[in-house]
């Protein structure tokens, strides 16, 4: 290359030229000056960055995000929550399901009546529990409503320590993602969860209802609280800072006679008159699907 031609000594000389006392083509002073220049330059830039970031942070509200563009349809999630959302177990093999029950135990610990009683208040059901600020005076901290574990009745794990897993009638708990200020349901109609067989992909794209035989395979379900509603009194949510003790409402669904020894795909949806259906691509926007397979062979 031409570079070699002009530098004469090639790379070795380029790195340290003893004649001109140049390291990588610059003398010590030259390096000093240029590094000083860049130091000043970057300090200035960093300063400007810090300043703009500071100004930006000043515009943020502590309790409510500036925008909630992505959260118009809140996500839905189940408990227990295996990685792949496949709950496969054998009723005769305790070790195949006891991690689910312990997970539920852990998850529901916060909902024990005693804890709820201590941290939260009893609210008027079936209406939003609004705690507006009066002008600049913040009405903080906000109070939260009790969601007692007993509301889940037979899925509370209190009467049945194994949440029905051991007799093939498992409970799955469904929770709706928290979104600040969300008021699900207009006109006092509380949102509720429905579960059912998940139609195969092709049918879903055509918006066909699940096939009858699939529905039969899922069998009967019972929801706790009744009808699978999220009571309106748990809304709106005021954020983790203002509403430290907020308890997310839950819905439990118990499969009473689900077909065993077979993969059953189940989809649960939120039904609310003011939550838009999520995008087709987001599999967890306002719905959640999971696979349930209960094996009964004894071997």
């Amino acid at each position: 290359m031409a570079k070699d031609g002009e530098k004469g000594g090639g790379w070795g000389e380029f790195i340290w030229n003893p004649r001109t006392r140049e390291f990588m083509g610059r003398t010590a002073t030259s390096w000093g000056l240029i590094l000083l220049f860049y130091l000043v330059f970057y300090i200035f830039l960093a300063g400007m960055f810090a300043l703009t970031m500071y100004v930006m942070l000043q515009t943020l509200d502590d309790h409510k995000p500036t925008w909630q563009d992505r959260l118009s349809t809140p996500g839905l999630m189940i408990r227990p929550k295996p990685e792949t959302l496949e709950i496969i177990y054998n009723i005769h093999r305790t070790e195949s399901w006891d991690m689910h029950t312990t997970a539920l135990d852990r998850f529901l610990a916060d909902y024990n009546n005693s804890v709820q009683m201590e941290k939260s208040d009893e609210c008027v059901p079936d209406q939003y529990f609004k705690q507006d600020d009066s002008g600049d005076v913040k009405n903080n901290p906000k109070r939260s409503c009790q969601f007692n574990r007993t509301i889940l009745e037979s899925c509370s794990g209190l009467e049945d320590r194994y949440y029905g897993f051991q007799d093939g009638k498992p409970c799955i708990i469904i929770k709706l993602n928290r979104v600040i200020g969300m008021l699900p349901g207009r006109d006092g109609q509380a949102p509720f969860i429905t579960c059912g067989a998940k139609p195969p992909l092709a049918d879903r794209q055509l918006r066909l209802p699940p096939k009858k035989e699939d529905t039969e395979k899922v069998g009967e379900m019972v929801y706790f609280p009744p009808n699978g509603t999220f009571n309106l009194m748990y809304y709106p949510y005021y954020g983790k800072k203002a509403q430290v003790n907020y308890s997310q409402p839950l819905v439990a669904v118990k499969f009473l006679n689900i077909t065993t020894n077979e993969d059953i795909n189940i989809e649960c949806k939120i039904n609310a008159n003011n939550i838009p259906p999520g995008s087709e691509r987001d599999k967890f926007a306002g719905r959640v699907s999971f696979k349930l397979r209960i094996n009964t062979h004894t071997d």
Partner: protein
Amino acid sequence: MFEMGGGVEVKGGKKTKKEKKKERLEGVKKEMDIDDHEIPIEDLEQRYNTNVTTGMTSTFARQVLERDGPNELKPPKGTPEYVKFARQLAGGLQCLMWVAAAICFIAFGIELARGNFTCFDNLYLAITLIAVVVVTGCFGYYQEFKSTNIIASFKNLVPQQALVIRDGRKDTISAKELVVGDLVEVKGGDRIPADIRIITAQSCKVDNSSLTGESEPQTRSPECTHENPMETKNIAFFSTTVLEGVATGVIINTGDRTIIGRIATLASGVGNEKTPIAIEIEHFVDIIAGLAIFFGFTFFVVALFIGYSFLEAMIYFMAIVVAYVPEGLLATVTVCLSLTAKRLARKNCVVKNLEAVETLGSTSVICSDKTGTLTQNRMTVAHLWFDNHVHSADTTEDQSGQSFDQSSETWRSLARVAGLCNRAIFRPDQEGIPIPRRTVVGDASETALLKFTELTIGNIEQYRNRFKKVAELPFNSTNKFALSIHELEDPLDLRYLLVMKGAPERILERCSTILIKGQELPLDEQWTEAFQTAYMDLGGLGERVLGFCNIYLNEKEFPRGFSFDPDELNFTTSNLCFCGLVSMIDPPRATVPDAVMKCRTAGIRVVMVTGDHPITAKAIAANVGIISEGSETVEDIAIRKRIPVERVNPREARACVINGGQLKDMSSDELDDALRNHPEMVFARTSPQQKLIIVESCQRLGSIVAVTGDGVNDSPALKKADIGIAMGIAGSDAAKNAADMILLDDNFASIVTGVEQGRLIFDNLKKSIAYTLTKNIPELTPYLIYITCSIPLPLGCITILFIELATDIYPSVSLAYEKAESDIMNLKPRNPRRDRLVNESLAVYSYFQIGAIQSFAGFTDYFTAMAQEGWFPLLCIGLRGNWEDTHLQDMQDSYGQEWSFSQRLYQQYTCYTVFFVSIEICQISDVLIRKTRRLSVFTQGFFRNKVLMSAIVFQILLGNLLCYCPGMPNIFNFMPIRGQWWAVPIPYGILIFVYDEIRKLGVRRAPGSWWDQELYY
């Protein structure tokens, strides 16, 4: 003289390649040792089975044709199309991108092997890289193809015909069908159809200039005068033209076996030099590759240090290296060059190879032909001497110049002689064409006189009809005069008028009186001396001088009906009355002096290389400014100081005229010395082969050489030159094939325009590259921060490709339309070793200053978008693990809200988009600052580059389309973002603009200072 062998010996081969070439040249020389010209005609008849009176039999001719193939020069073996295309894919930048694509494939392979089936970015990237290379390759190929077509269209479409005698019958056939042994007849004006041995000839003269460069006509006769076939008079060569007379001859060589054919094939032996821009791009690729590997390796180490696995670190390393590849640059460079090529084509320069556009800009020496390039290639009356005064005629092409005083009686007589004693006539039906451009039947000087008289005294045909011609004697070389006798206009005047023109000294001999202001005065000593002075002066101007005289014949001696016999000269041809002198020259084109001056101010040396006479060459050189006013040659100094030439110090002489004979005896060192010591050089009487030597000498001195040429023999020099320029009109196909550029109007001034455009494109390419490189940093830093700080990825691969290949292409190309900052034609040619296209300060300034500001802009916007949606900056750091967990559907943000994976992904796309928008906003500022490197943008004219303005509008519109067009999120990962986020990077955009104005101010105010050295690119 055929000097090719000598020429090659002079330069004493340097490399093995040249050694080989030398051998081949020697080979050609040996092959020329034919004896067809020496053997008796009978042997020749036997050898070729022919007959010198009846020719061959057509049946045998057909057999020979089958054996030897048609008599035509095989088009030089063009590079096969696929090689041409492959060449388009193998430039410096292209190679960089191939390597990058390969790395992408490897990275993709590794990801796949690790079971990551979702990450197709690397695959897309690889495919895009390859697509870019292929598409720009097609584009470049198409350009080349198009210009090749333009060249092809110039090919002589009319097939040459030849008069052949076969079976004793004359027949006109296509020259292609001629075979060895054919008997052909040629006459004045014909092109010799093959190498022929002359059998009979009548005053036959040929112009061998296309072969040897010698412009003097050469006699051809049946005698063998020399054992060397090149020197003997009884061989006429293929492609030379017969000037006058007729001849018959037997064909001894056809097609590629002719002398000219052998030389034409030689051109392919001269290797093509790398263009300066290709060297620059390689240098640039070196810088890029060096930086890429440096960055990649640094972060490879950092990644290992942070605790990534070796494989992951390796993938990061590859990703960083690839991110450094400026995908859009190749397209930008190609488009910029082809824009200039287009602009040049409008100015009559067709460029065969895009890169040649820039080469022209780097040119420091132009070796130019004289005839046709510097001059108009037509004899024109330049001066007249009558009434003891030299008058200048108008020699401009469009007759826009000053004319002389035509009121004198002497002028009228002189014009009458010039008009009447002239056999040239205009071809019919040319009324619409301006007189200087009409075609004429007649020799060069008569043509000049015809046009001159037509211009000065009006319709010469009618004029001649008024003076009825009764006898004439055309010009011949023994008499050196022509005369004609006419009746007078006035029917009552029964005298005859004898008009005569010829070599001035011969004319003067025959005169006893001279016409001064209409008075016939005796031609005494004083007038003879005046005549001598004028004759010397005009001859010294390199002009061809003719003398004119007339006489009214005595009515009694030569009454009406007298039978004049021009051969016997039975009438008065002495004691005539001298009218004046007219001198002619092939005048320089009007635009040339200006163009040469421009070259001079642009630091480009113009060297004239011509086959013409040294005096004429010197006169024209002085006329157009190649030898400037006041410059003297060694000989001039010797005359001025009245000392012998040897005693003159050659260093005193700025100018130097070397003729071919001297050049032959010079060693290459002497030639180098001459070129070094004399800034103004003229090479006269050179053969086209010697051009090669001159070019090589210039290149040895470190110049980038442009060469013009038209003949077949110029092709080696054209190829050897850094940029070969062939003449579109006069050029042969071989020359056009060897050249890099074609001048459609054969005009030297077009070269200067080309130089200007070439320099401009070099400047503007620098700006385009600086603009394109800048955004590499804001594209790279998100990834670096992503690796090191584990924030959610701020900028995706597809988004980067959109910046590189969609939004930023138009603005970077628009910089090619930028006007020059200063008068680029007042600067010296760039020093190819020092003034690089991409130098360190350009890269450093773009990357570490402007690029850094852009990165900060991007991150500001990124963190704003994240924070306003609920993810505070401090939370972002280290967030990546959970953020990218596809199973985590209820991840908490800073407010305690829960996000599903898809919601986070769309948030990430939002970040891509705001980062994209930030880069766009900063790039708008960037393109504005890149308009100038030194001047303030306001001095340059903020809105002057309309293309650039429309490019900015286009950029914004395209950005908006990408952001807000429905469906974009899922196809190209663009999200409709909040309007406020467009505004966040604006302060940084302003900072870029203000900072660069400060930089330029410093550079202007303190030239040579530390600031200038470090920050001027």
